[in-house]
């Protein structure tokens, strides 16, 4: 199948395979599912594995092929096996909008940390490595704290490693949020007609110097037998007119906020990389009222200008008819995709 630049509407009844298409595009970009399921759950029932392949046409053309089964996994980029993932990530960039995004506002801090981490991993090559090393040191340090009487010099050695990687994560997040915040505020204002002011503030558990504060917190760490401060406990605070959105926002405001965060993510990637990521929009329209829909659609349509692509799933009943101009419609039924019509 070939998808031209522009807006693609995937229409069909429920359970026909619309989301599957978005899922496979996202999989090629990140090697993960956006529904948060493992690879084993993406295999068709009764089959051994799955295969996804695509030619990505941007400033250059790249062919990605990915085969996964319980026994083997093969990832090739332009026919060559991929040896290091950091060489692979960035070939295709995608931002997904789905109903689970609401958890960015409502859910645990872990979800907002993952949001920051994903964006930084997509734009800074060393971030992912630091994140992985940090997780390893953290496990070691916590294992030490759980010992009956930990050797303080050993603890000190691992604390030092924790600071080395952790401080880099904190610095990267601290620099990211002030750049992301105005983008999110702008997107929020466009989607919602309301005048609420969105504030996005990084809430680190470390105020300035990780090494110093870790030392100060040592007694508490030992008492609780766990590392209580560090980037693994950070949060991102989302406020509307100075009130925490998770507590005081209405459902509609929370949905708008989640969309604005994703929009900001896409804009930020565009700014760094120079061209927009592929936008994948899964069943989000049905949940928005008419006013917010008409605020969001123009944002999505702007993707045309930079030769970007947008894929949106919809059921017949709730596809946004106001989205009239320049779109390609595909009919999805029983796992088959058919070109329906192009409008321009």
């Amino acid at each position, binding site marked *: 199948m070939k998808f031209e630049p522009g807006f693609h509407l995937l229409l069909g009844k429920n359970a026909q395979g619309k989301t599957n298409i978005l899922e496979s595009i996202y999989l090629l970009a990140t090697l993960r599912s956006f529904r948060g399921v493992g690879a084993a759950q993406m295999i068709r029932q009764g089959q051994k594995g799955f295969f996804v392949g695509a030619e990505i046409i941007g400033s250059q053309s790249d062919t990605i092929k990915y085969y996964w089964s319980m026994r083997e996994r093969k990832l090739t980029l332009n026919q060559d096996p991929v040896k290091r993932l950091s060489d692979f990530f960035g070939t295709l960039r995608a931002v997904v909008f789905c109903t689970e995004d609401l958890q960015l506002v409502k859910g645990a801090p872990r979800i907002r940390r993952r949001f920051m981490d994903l964006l930084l991993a997509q734009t800074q090559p060393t971030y992912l490595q630091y994140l992985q090393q940090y997780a390893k040191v953290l496990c070691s340090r916590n294992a030490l704290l759980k010992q009956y009487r930990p050797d303080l010099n050993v603890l*000190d050695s691992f604390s030092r490693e924790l600071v080395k990687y952790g401080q880099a994560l904190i610095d990267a997040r601290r620099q990211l949020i002030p750049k992301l915040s105005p983008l999110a505020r702008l997107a929020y204002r466009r989607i919602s007609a309301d005048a609420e002011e969105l504030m996005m503030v990084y809430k680190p558990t470390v105020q300035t110097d990780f090494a110093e504060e870790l030392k100060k917190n040592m007694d508490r760490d030992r008492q609780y037998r766990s590392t209580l401060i560090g980037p693994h406990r950070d949060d991102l605070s989302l406020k509307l007119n100075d009130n925490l959105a998770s507590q005081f926002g209405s459902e509609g405001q929370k949905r708008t906020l989640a969309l604005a965060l994703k929009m900001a993510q896409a804009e930020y990637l565009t700014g760094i990389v120079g061209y927009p990521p592929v936008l994948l929009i899964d069943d989000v329209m049905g949940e928005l009222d008419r006013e917010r829909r008409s605020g969001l659609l123009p944002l999505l349509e702007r993707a045309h200008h930079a030769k970007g692509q947008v894929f949106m799933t919809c059921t017949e009943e709730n596809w946004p008819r106001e989205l009239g101009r320049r779109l390609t419609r595909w009919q999805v039924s029983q796992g088959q995709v058919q070109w329906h019509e192009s409008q321009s």
Partner: protein
Amino acid sequence: MLTLPPAVQELKSALNRLPGIGPRSAERIALHLVQSKQDAVDLLIRSVKEAKEKVSLCETCGGLTETQPCPLCSNSQRQQECICVVVKPTDILTLEKSQAFKGQYHVLGGQISPMNGVGPEDLRIDSLEHRIRENPVEEVILALGSDVEGDATSYYLAKRLSALDVKITRIAQGLPAGSELDYADELTLGKAMQGRAALPHD
């Protein structure tokens, strides 16, 4: 379905425990052995037994040896004023092959790893301190890996040995010889940049 005779099955699982030998290779080797001539099998048994009996760890450095102390430790031609600390006995063989070092060795026998319950008391650190106290050296070179545990263990050692009035260094990290920048990952490049050295100009 015909299965392996129990004795062959047992041999197979014993072989399977060896490094680099998976279940298929283990089965092939087991079947090969039971069908081989008696001489060949005897030779194998004898050489395994002899090697195991003769080879032990050097009491001084912890390397593999047939004599006490090992040829490296008893060689007076080698530099006495420098000890290179490595993680495992085979690291000595690797370094010797490179011929980059002509001093003494000391094997730690592992790295500090809280996840696996390995602490400093499980490593040969006491014997290292003892060695330095008995025969003072000028420099201790830490040649541990550059993973999290290697970094933490190196730092721990540096701190602990600092009481002994000896210069402590760690081997450099950076680009593999003969390679271009494109082939190095970002972390390695970062470390290479940090550990850069001045070029002589005369």
